[in-house]
């Protein structure tokens, strides 16, 4: 069995428009794959397919050799928690009613971790991503985008996923916050042998961070 998250011949249409046409992509454990391409080339769609958030019209996703069918919430928790995704806009990705501590702990609570254990793990992760304890009691409106994205990263790592997909996750952050989040992801990756996908337009970022870069041309198939 191979440790990899693999997209096999993925095809996706939105209405009549084909955004992905038999696309293959493989993210092996421990590697960092950069994914770039023009706007509308289907980068985010491919990330969503790999995160099991979007069922493709053709092809399938395989996780560590096991072919998966259906979308995330229909899969067993042990499978779906292996893959985590981090989006570009933390504001659009977070429930404004939850405190940061609740946001981070929520996935654990959803899979039955007792409250105290979930809280302790949330505090541990908050520390890892550089959120000070006083921020944890706040709700999204009372923190900056950078602080909120840190909380989203903590939430993404809470189940110790084998694969982390970052869809332009640092594009709206200042250079220092971006470098810090990259360091957190890289440390996590080193400790847990995780595979990482980086969707980005930033050539300098991909050169620096990714171990290899795949180019997704508009409406076509990837090279690289």
């Amino acid at each position, binding site marked *: 069995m191979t440790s990899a998250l693999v997209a096999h011949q993925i095809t996706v249409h939105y209405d009549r428009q084909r955004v992905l046409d038999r696309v293959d992509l493989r993210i092996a454990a421990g590697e960092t794959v950069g994914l770039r391409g023009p706007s509308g080339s289907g980068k985010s769609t491919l990330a969503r397919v790999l995160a099991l958030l979007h069922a493709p019209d053709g092809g399938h996703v395989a996780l560590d050799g096991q072919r998966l069918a259906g979308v995330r919430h229909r899969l067993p928790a042990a499978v779906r928690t292996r893959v985590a995704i981090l989006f570009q806009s933390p504001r659009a990705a977070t429930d404004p009613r939850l405190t940061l501590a609740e946001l981070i702990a929520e996935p654990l609570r959803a899979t039955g971790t007792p409250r105290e254990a979930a809280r302790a793990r949330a505090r541990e992760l908050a520390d890892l991503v550089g959120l000070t304890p006083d921020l944890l009691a706040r709700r999204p409106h009372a923190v900056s985008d950078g602080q909120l994205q840190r909380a989203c990263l903590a939430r993404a790592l809470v189940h110790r996923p084998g694969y982390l997909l970052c869809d332009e996750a640092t594009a709206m*952050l200042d*250079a*220092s916050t971006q470098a810090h989040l990259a360091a957190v992801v890289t440390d996590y990756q080193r400790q847990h042998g995780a595979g990482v996908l980086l969707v980005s337009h930033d050539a*300098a970022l991909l050169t620096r*961070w990714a171990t290899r870069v795949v180019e997704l041309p508009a409406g076509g198939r990837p090279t690289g």
Partner: protein
Amino acid sequence: MTTTAPATTTGARAGRAPALLDVEGLTVRFRLRDAVVHAVTDLRLTVHPGELLAVVGESGCGKSVLAHALLGLLPGNATVTGQARLHPPAGNPVDLLGCGERRLAREVRGRALGLVPQSPATALTPVRTGRRLLVETLRAYGHPRRDADPAADRLAVEVGLDPADLDRYPHELSGGMAQRLVTALALAPDPPLLLADEPTTGLDRPLVDHTLDLLRRRCDTGAAVLLITHDLAAARRVADTIAVMYASRIVEHRPAGALFDAPVHPYSAGLLDALPDRAFRPVPGHPPMLTDLPPGCAFAPRCERATDTCRTAPAPALPGPGRAACHHPLGAPA
């Protein structure tokens, strides 16, 4: 608040065109129930015709408050002190902080001082199409009715929006399309000074470059732009001068090339080191809360050059090759 005499001029002014915008000792505080937010502190800057000034810094350092203070758009719990004078090429100088709401609304906002707001989704009237908004704006600023429609199309093309998309309502636009629409709206009155607050949010790289180049071209034809951004690469691409803001203060304000080649303030150096094509190393520690700034230099707790001297506030940064707001600047400024 220690403000030096506002009458002092920056050395560069003599011989050049007079500054379009001259800000001196601008300070903004927000009163909350149990705290005071120090959003902007003793800020001075000048913008000359043809200049593109980028204000860069981490989120929450006070960049956007600066733009809103100049336009008189701050909420009621804000206290603004200092001086901000606008010298439009046509018309009389305006004291932006003292002239009152009536004059700001009639003569300044949009006309003399445009704003590309940060969050287009909340800046567009939801019940009007893009075309209607744009034509309305053109008409309000004196464009004849007859050619308002073609002018709207031209503006759309200029910002990289398909004119056909102007016939959509704001909720039918993607974030990037809405961003381009608010940019077109700000350009419609052709203001001599444009405040662009993160104007490339939600755009992908080619459109980011398109928008930045558009701002650059405005400056090349004599207008001026104050670009507020977190994106150093964007600032590097188009800015003449860069002001680095940290915890409510401008800490360094220099020509873009000089700043990138040899930053003087340790924070500027740290921020540049965080770039992926440099060391990709974050500035250690975290920015302070604006409700709880340390006494003295606000960067000292994160700074490896800090000494006891840093417990007193350094003198504010001066534009040009002059000094950074630091007791222990890197290198010796030329």
